[in-house]
């Protein structure tokens, strides 16, 4: 009613929250959280089949409702990430890829050089590339130029829950690129998601903030509301900040109580 849809790779999404499928205490808890989040896109990893094979994560994700976003988590070179994207496509997961090329195992910060290289290759080959990058506006622009469909700067390290550490850089990224900007990683609680959206981001992607909450389904709902509230606040145009008070009741007509 108030907003347009988020468009990624020609597909429209009314929800601006993308959620993960990892770290849940059970697949049933994950399913409930997905339901409450209102998300229409969920990210999955690609891993070796363990033998004998048990249940599949996809037994618990209704693919007619959720668009699958395969990620290249755990890849440390452009080559590994590119091969993983091709594996995902061959597995029938489509052309979307949450592209991660990790540069350091302690911080999981991206290797932007490898990321740029992989983005170029995959975009040329028809992938809808969604790169996880740092909060650097220059790199965001390079990724856009390389064919990224969106850019996904981190708010803080993956799984840290530290929130949006550099809102000013995110703001500059929003002014620098014309593709959608989705904050990926760092969100810890609802206000973090709201801050990202109030800045003008097009969406937020999170996993741990929901999965590691004491009540993941309730937190998923909180995140859905926060993303919606933040978006709506951004679209509404907030009032300017002022240092001193301005009365919001009329100054005229105040009764006189002096004796």
């Amino acid at each position, binding site marked *: 009613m108030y907003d347009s849809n988020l468009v990624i790779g020609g597909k429209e999404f009314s929800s601006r929250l993308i959620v993960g499928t990892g770290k849940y205490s059970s697949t049933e808890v994950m399913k409930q959280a997905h339901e409450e989040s209102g998300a229409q896109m969920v990210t999955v990893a690609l891993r070796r089949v363990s033998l004998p094979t048990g249940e599949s994560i996809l037994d618990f994700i209704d693919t007619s409702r959720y668009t699958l976003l395969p990620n290249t988590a755990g890849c440390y070179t452009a080559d590994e990430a590119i*091969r993983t994207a091709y594996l995902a496509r061959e597995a*029938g997961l489509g052309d979307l890829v949450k592209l991660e090329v990790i540069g350091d195992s302690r911080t999981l910060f991206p290797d932007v050089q490898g990321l740029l290289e992989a983005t170029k290759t995959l975009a040329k080959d028809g992938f809808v590339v969604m790169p996880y990058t740092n909060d650097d506006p220059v790199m965001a622009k390079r990724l856009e130029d390389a064919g990224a469909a969106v850019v996904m700067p981190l708010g803080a390290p993956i799984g840290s829950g530290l929130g949006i550490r550099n809102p000013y850089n995110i703001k500059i990224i929003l002014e620098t690129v014309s593709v959608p900007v989705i904050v990926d990683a760092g969100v810890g609680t609802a206000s973090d998601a709201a801050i990202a959206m109030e800045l003008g981001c097009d969406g937020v992607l999170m996993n741990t903030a929901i999965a590691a909450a004491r009540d993941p389904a309730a937190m998923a709902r909180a995140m859905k509301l926060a993303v919606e509230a933040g978006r709506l606040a951004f679209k509404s145009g907030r009032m300017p900040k002022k240092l001193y008070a301005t009365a919001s009741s009329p100054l005229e007509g105040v009764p006189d109580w002096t004796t």
Partner: protein
Amino acid sequence: MNVTVNGKPMELEPGTTVEGLLTLLGVPRQYLAVAVNRDITPKSEYAALKLAEGDRVEIVRPMGGGA
């Protein structure tokens, strides 16, 4: 012949194809992808591609994950 499947050594009849290996392992086919020696094997080639001594086979499918 000896091959490596998902990092583990495995002995197979000579001439075993990718299709044969998947059947032997009883792997569900939905959302499955296979790579042999780093190259991705299209589904259309499973039946024809014979594995060779020393081949490294990766069989993957989606798992829970965020980033």
